[in-house]
């Protein structure tokens, strides 16, 4: 684990409910900002009015139809999806780093990402786009992600060993295999690779409300599961055996964590493609401020993960407008320097 200084002790006055409330308020403000910013800037109040009137089913007579469309059909779904994706990746990172006792564990460690990439390209290769239309790639990615995760656990089950190192190694091996197959298919397909490259680098360009509902549902379910296991994850920081000594049902914690996390990440990855680093940088930065207790860490990682990804997405849309940058470039571009700054200024070095 990265040895943090004492900062987190001084944040104790921020009791969990208070700090989550503060973070949620921050997140809502960022959401509004994200909807407001773009090629056409829309005032906060207009966003509130348009959304409110839409929810109540009232006519939007005082706004131009273009503005209403921009808010309701373009920006709001995209921004919400970004927010929930950030929450999913960051909370999963926090939980996995605890479960696997590995500071480098990210949401993709059990093979979700590589599976999603392979699933997406396989769908394209098999002509799924013709059959299923725009939902083909997300669906293929979701199925691919689940298949690879199932494969990883199949290997663990066959060896009758669920020790965390074995799981991680199986995830890495199977993930690498899936990535190799993805690259092979990309070379073979040649022409359609632009769309696929966008997927592999992370993109929220074309998103509808269907996607928002699917991702929202799975993130809510996944977060409920992670909230239930958060406390017991603390004991796993020692070792699985010590957690057992402390009376924790380790098997239940492990399966719930991986189940909830896979549901969230597989759904999110299916719609947005691969966004790296969120699941590493946000939880580690938070540990630095609030300590390691997963009851604070997991919910706060979710909220600050959304904020982080919302800001990254705003930058991706506006930096070289009207062009759009892949999100992965931004998360690494602002994430890595910020993280390094924290490492350099913290009192301790890496353990």
């Amino acid at each position, binding site marked *: 684990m990265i040895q943090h200084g004492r900062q*987190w002790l001084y944040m104790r006055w921020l009791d969990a409910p208070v700090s989550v409330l503060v973070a949620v308020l921050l997140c809502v403000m960022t959401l509004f900002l994200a909807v407001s910013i773009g090629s056409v800037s829309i005032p906060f109040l207009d966003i509130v009015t348009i959304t409110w009137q839409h929810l109540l089913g009232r006519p939007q007579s005082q706004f131009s139809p273009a503005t209403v469309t921009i808010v309701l059909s373009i920006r709001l779904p995209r921004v919400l999806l970004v927010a929930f994706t950030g929450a999913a990746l960051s909370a999963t990172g926090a939980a996995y780093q605890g479960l696997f006792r590995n500071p480098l564990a990210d949401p993709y460690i059990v093979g979700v990402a590589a599976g999603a990439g392979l699933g997406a390209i396989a769908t394209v290769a098999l002509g799924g786009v013709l059959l299923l239309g725009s939902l083909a790639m997300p669906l293929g990615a979701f199925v691919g992600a689940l298949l690879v995760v199932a494969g990883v656990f199949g290997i663990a089950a066959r060896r009758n060993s669920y020790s965390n190192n074995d799981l991680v190694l199986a995830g890495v091996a199977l993930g690498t295999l899936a990535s190799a197959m993805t690259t092979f298919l990309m070379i073979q397909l040649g022409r359609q690779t632009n769309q696929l490259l966008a997927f592999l680098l992370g993109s929220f360009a074309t998103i509808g409300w269907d996607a928002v509902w699917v991702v929202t549902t799975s993130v809510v379910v996944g977060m409920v599961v992670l909230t239930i296991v958060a406390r017991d994850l603390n004991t796993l920081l020692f070792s699985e*055996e010590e957690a057992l000594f*402390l009376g924790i049902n380790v098997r239940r914690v492990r399966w719930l964590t991986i189940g909830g996390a896979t549901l969230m990440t597989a759904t999110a990855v299916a719609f947005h493609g691969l966004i790296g680093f969120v699941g590493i940088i946000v939880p580690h930065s938070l540990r630095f401020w609030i300590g390691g207790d997963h009851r604070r860490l997991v919910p706060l990682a979710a909220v600050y993960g959304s904020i982080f990804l919302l800001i990254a997405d705003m930058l991706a849309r506006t930096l070289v407008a009207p062009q759009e940058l892949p999100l992965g470039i931004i998360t690494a571009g602002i994430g890595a320097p910020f993280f390094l700054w924290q490492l350099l200024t913290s009192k301790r070095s890496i353990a």
Partner: protein
Amino acid sequence: MNASDQWPIVVEQVTVRIAPRTILQDITLNISSHTFVACLGPNGAGKSTLIRVLAGTQPVATGQVRINGIPVAERTAAQRAAVVAVVPQAVRMPVGFTVREIVTMARYHVRAWHQRLTHRDQEIIDYAMEQAGIHAFRDRPAHELSGGEQQRVAFARALAQQPQVLLLDEATAHLDLHHQQAIMQSARELTRCGVTVFATMHDINLAGAMADSLVLLHEGGIVKHGAPAAVLTQATLEAVYAAQVQTVPQAGSTLPLFTAFPRH
């Protein structure tokens, strides 16, 4: 209930195999309540495995372990933790928790994830920290403490489980004399409160001085089990440890001191 269940710890013909080796072979052991039992033996004799068998985390090939009359295999992790607590060897504290938060983990199994700790839980936690002598730094980050202090945090955590059986797995092996004595002394005092202590140890003299009875383990079997004076003889130790052992008479004690003596 068996007649033998007047003993809190009953080990019946336990064999443990971790392929291809047999770690414990046909172990039978009854331990009476309110006693401090020390388990000695060379490296690889099976001491740690025996602790894990008693704690219920090591599956056995044959035989059975009963704690308070109930087979450990039939208890859930939470049910076991309510009766048995373990202080593992060389515990390393995770980053980002205060001492108090670490000790609080001992009460997790009593409460569901959404329940808050009761006032009674808080009292138990405070009392455990006082007993282990770490109450003064309860609000410090646990990972910043010295090795000896961290081991005492692990000891406090075990106490906060309020166990009837306390298992120490070479819990003092890496500590200096003062910390070693402090932990052993508190473990001894616990036996007066009705706790049964089973400790694997390396220090033969400390074990002889502290324990009510000794178990001498060698190559997965029990060589001797009885009062310290009966177990600790020069001949037995030389045979089990395959080393030359010298005895030095000790003032005020019937037990001599044992020291390893290099062969020339």
